[in-house]
């Protein structure tokens, strides 16, 4: 009996093993649930199926297959079948698997471009990037024309070749519930005693209502851009106004802001990064990567009341790049975050809970208004969040009605407030963070390569780019325009993001300076929020600066610790070989 039981167990275990091994075997006749059509040529496309999803790619696939249904790409076959692999692999994962992958075209993020190029992992696509797109109805235009100057300078190697095309944009910021703001009148009022057109900062702070409008039709303040009659009117123009807003929101029985507790370290760091980047502006931020230019915001000292005294502008070179860590943007960002977390009623209770994922935070934000439980006014996220939350939008519409659905609900991206009043009126600046790229596997066979190039080229036609933007409600990281008809198809949030993109400066974290190229991760702006205080290194802004902690570090101490850590000795020890 025992022998029989043992034999049976052995058989069961063997069967289980065979079944699990069988699962490893790819069915050659099915990819992503789609059966292979042997009469057509297959094109395998890998997509990072994260926040931006794959709906845009499914639409692209459908059009491409239709466009080329009568074209033969190999003998005996007509038409093409695009097979999508939605593995969520970033650049670092793909770099280790691409040479053995059957995927020919890749759309992903986290790509350190020159790592891919120098390892020979990606195909030379100079021909399609510089080719006239006339065959797609865009005569006189090339993909290269759609690159911004900073992108051209980076993606074009010194040998004059291209190996990738920028894919999606990724900015971090504050998303606000426009419906809630309108309902509760969370907008600042304009001071009618000053000329709004000539006075960038014109909030009527002492109007008897803490500076807020009394009625919806009251004239709103200029907002951070310092101009009347623009999309940011009434929004907090300064950090000070932002906290007045938080008090006002909280007093109205709402929760001012939430973010993911599980990923708070990363998200808070990106939030501080976004604030710092906006403070610095495009010109100053580029010094951070090129180590060329004149730094104008270097901190000399910080008073006990937080007043910053600046140094004289200083020329930055490879040899003294460390000086840039004294730039005031980081200080103001850290100080903002500390104030935000100094009052527990400013943020959602789960913003420090390690099980509160980013998608849970999105759901809390979306459901809080219809559920009428301390509605959350703002969410710190990246611009892809709305596409990522599409299931939550569908659920909420099913539960509470279509007015809460994705295309009805009004949620906007808030231009960040300025650190000080004198900064109001400066252009809003964002950092494109994700190093997202489209490229082709260098291991393609010659006939596969031709088809892959055609697909990548097709994906970057104006029609495809516009379709991508309408579908994801986020912009591509390229230069292009959107017509009114196309904008009308987007959600309120998508139009808000487009509006910001059209009116802001975008910093791309690129440089061909050898110091940067050889130390990209170490020198990423996001990485440079570590601080050394009394011999201890701190890298957890979210917790170390949390205003309610008794042992919190002050923003001033933390900032001075950043300067102490990224000092001359460290710079010379790390990068001296590239000084000349």
């Amino acid at each position, binding site marked *: 009996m025992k022998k029989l039981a043992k034999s049976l167990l052995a058989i069961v275990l063997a069967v289980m093993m065979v079944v699990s091994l069988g699962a490893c075997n790819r069915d050659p006749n099915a990819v992503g649930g789609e059966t292979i059509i042997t009469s057509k040529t297959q094109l395998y496309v890998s997509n990072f199926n994260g926040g931006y999803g794959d709906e845009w790619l499914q639409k692209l696939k459908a059009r491409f297959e239709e466009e080329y249904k009568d074209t033969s790409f190999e003998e005996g076959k007509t038409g093409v079948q695009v097979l999508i692999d939605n593995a969520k692999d970033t650049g670092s994962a793909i770099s280790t698997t691409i040479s053995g992958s059957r995927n020919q075209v890749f759309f992903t993020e986290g790509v350190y471009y020159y790592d891919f190029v120098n390892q020979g992992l990606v195909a030379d696509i100079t021909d399609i990037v510089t080719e006239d797109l006339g065959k797609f109805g865009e005569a006189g235009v090339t993909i290269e024309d759609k690159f911004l100057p900073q992108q051209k300078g980076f993606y074009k190697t010194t040998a004059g070749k291209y190996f990738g095309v920028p894919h999606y944009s990724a900015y971090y910021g504050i998303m606000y519930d426009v419906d809630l703001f309108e309902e509760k009148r969370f907008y600042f009022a304009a001071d009618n005693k000053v000329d709004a057109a000539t006075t960038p900062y014109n909030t009527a702070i002492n109007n008897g209502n803490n500076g807020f409008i009394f009625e919806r039709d009251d004239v709103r303040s200029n907002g951070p851009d310092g101009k009347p009659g623009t999309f940011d009117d009434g929004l907090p123009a300064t950090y000070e106004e932002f906290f007045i807003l938080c008090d006002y929101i909280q007093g109205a029985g709402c929760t001012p802001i939430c973010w993911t507790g599980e*990923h708070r370290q990363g998200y808070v760091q990106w939030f501080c990064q976004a604030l710092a980047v906006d403070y610095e502006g495009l010109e100053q931020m580029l010094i951070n990567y090129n180590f060329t230019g004149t730094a104008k915001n270097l901190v000399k000292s910080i008073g006990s009341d937080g007043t910053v005294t600046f140094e004289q502008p200083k020329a930055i070179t490879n040899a003294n790049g460390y000086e840039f860590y004294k730039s005031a943007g980081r200080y103001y960002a850290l100080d903002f975050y500390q104030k935000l977390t100094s009052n527990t009623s400013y943020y959602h209770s789960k913003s420090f809970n390690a099980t509160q994922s980013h998608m849970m935070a999105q759901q809390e934000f979306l459901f809080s208004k219809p559920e009428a439980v301390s509605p959350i006014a703002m969410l710190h996220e990246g611009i892809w969040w709305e596409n990522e939350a599409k299931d939550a939008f569908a659920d909420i519409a099913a539960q509470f009605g279509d007015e809460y659905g994705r295309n009805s609900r009004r949620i906007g991206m808030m231009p960040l407030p300025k650190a000080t009043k004198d900064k109001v009126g400066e252009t809003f600046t964002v950092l494109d963070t994700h190093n997202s790229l489209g490229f082709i596997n260098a291991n393609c066979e010659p006939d596969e390569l031709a088809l892959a190039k055609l697909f990548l080229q097709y994906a970057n036609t104006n029609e495809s780019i516009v379709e991508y933007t309408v579908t994801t409600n986020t912009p591509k990281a390229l230069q292009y325009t959107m017509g009114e008809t196309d904008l009308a198809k987007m959600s309120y949030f998508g139009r808000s993001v487009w509006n910001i993109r059209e009116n802001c400066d975008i910093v791309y974290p690129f440089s061909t300076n050898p110091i940067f190229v050889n130390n990209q991760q170490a020198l990423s702006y996001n990485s440079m929020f570590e601080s050394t205080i009394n011999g201890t290194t701190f890298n957890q802004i979210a917790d170390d600066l949390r205003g309610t902690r008794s042992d919190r570090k002050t923003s001033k101490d933390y900032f001075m610790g950043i300067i102490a850590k990224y000092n001359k000795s460290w710079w010379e020890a790390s990068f001296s070989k590239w000084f000349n």
Partner: protein
Amino acid sequence: MEKLIKVKGMNRRRRAEKVFYWMMLALPLLQFCVFYIVVNFNSILLSFQTIETDISGGGYIYSWVGFENFAEVIRLCLNEYELVCSFGNSMMAYGIGLVFGTAPALLFSFYIYKKYPLGGFFKIVLFLPSLISAVAMVLIFKYFVENAYPAIMETLFNMKVEGLLANPDTTFATVIIYGVWLGFGGGILMYLGAMNSISESVVEAAHLDGITPMKEFFKITLPLIWPTLVTFLVTGIAGIFTNQLSLFTFFQDKANKSYYTYGYYMFLHTKAGMTEYPHVASMGLLMTIIVAPITLLARYLLEKFGPSVD
């Protein structure tokens, strides 16, 4: 003639056996050569080079730099905050694992081996973390310490507390506890297996002499499973510099620098790209040079001075 046929038959059979034996070994040997010898040889070569990016796209620039990488690694280990912390954390993780992991695992194994009440239950519950995927396990653990624990404290003791991971004062200890709990299962299984192979006649004889359970554990069980225990202790020492403490599963690349271990540091720097490989390679080689003799010495001492079967 008959004898000759028999001898020929035996030779053929032996040859067939040898062919089968080598065929079975061929793939593992090839894998060993490629994924161990070649990889480690390349790693050794890398530790004497630097890699720079060529912005013409022509490939990386490799340069021989002698022992510069090692000097840099030593400098960093003595001065860089996270590496200084790594030394303490890696040692502490091993020590805590030894005292609070290995010792209780031995006692639990003995309890299960003696078939005391609920032994089967303990066997399953303690081994379960080793079966479930690490990411799922961390998620379950997080839900407990972040949601269940505060709820329990509020319900039972009327105390409002933060989750153990949300509270920076308890975060690291929580991660350590998770590591100890996770390590239980594998140890229990191995020790239990070793205990089950103890001859019953020896145990019966001891019982006839009136031995108590504690005496049985120290005088019979422990000496007889000592080789298994030595294997675990020695491999534990070898693993000091590679133990990540599940930090990446908990925090991805955003762990507090004061929690770093050498394993976590090296993993993060490998992710940073090819230009970091020489730095990590030289660190790995340096640690091998340090830990290899310690491991061999530990094995020698444990075998020489450990309890003897006699």
